[in-house]
């Protein structure tokens, strides 16, 4: 891991077109501004971990369990 010290308003450049800027520091919280191309996904680490966990759980689905779960759901043609 590369470790850098930055002050407020100072930036870090990642590659050609990503900029990370320290905007404010207050009570142990750092406010960070990120400029990145639209196709670069920028999300909080814990949200990424949560979605990853949900996907991993989903990938364990057993067809038999789905058949039982389906029995309690409205089928597409039946709604309303």
């Amino acid at each position, binding site marked *: 891991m590369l470790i850098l010290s930055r002050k407020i308003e100072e930036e870090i450049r990642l590659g050609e077109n990503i900029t990370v800027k320290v905007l404010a520091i207050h009570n142990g919280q750092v406010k960070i501004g990120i400029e990145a191309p639209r196709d670069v996904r920028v999300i909080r680490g814990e949200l990424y971990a949560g979605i990853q966990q949900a*996907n*991993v759980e*989903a*990938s364990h*689905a057993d067809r038999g*369990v*789905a058949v039982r*779960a389906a029995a309690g759901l*409205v089928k597409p043609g039946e709604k309303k």
Partner: protein
Amino acid sequence: MKFTNRQFGELEFEDDHVVMFPVGLIGFERHRKFLIVDDVDSEPFRWLVSLEDGDLSFPLLDPAILLPGYAVEAVTGGGKTVFVVASLRPDVNGSTVNLRSPLVIDNATRTARQVILDDEGLPLQFPLVPSAAAAAGR
């Protein structure tokens, strides 16, 4: 072409059935090629089945079944199909769907992406069964 999946056996498909995820799913970034499989027995679930790993499949739901109006907000522009991914537990009451990061498929190009919606109120684990949803305050 043919591909064998552990749960669904041998699947026969054409090139234009393949759904491409150019950046994979979150946590499954290396899996790019999938099929959407309709399995009558587990309807209304549909399945996102990897064409690169015979053990990998995800149960999907049309979000309109659970939450009318949800899909409209999740999609910008037409020509897209939205699915939510379900986490199924042997006890159905513990089963959930991820409303925060649905899959959005472009029908014309058959490319897809797991998007992350800005609404922080959308749960990663929304109860699949209405009674469980009511108990959770929805």
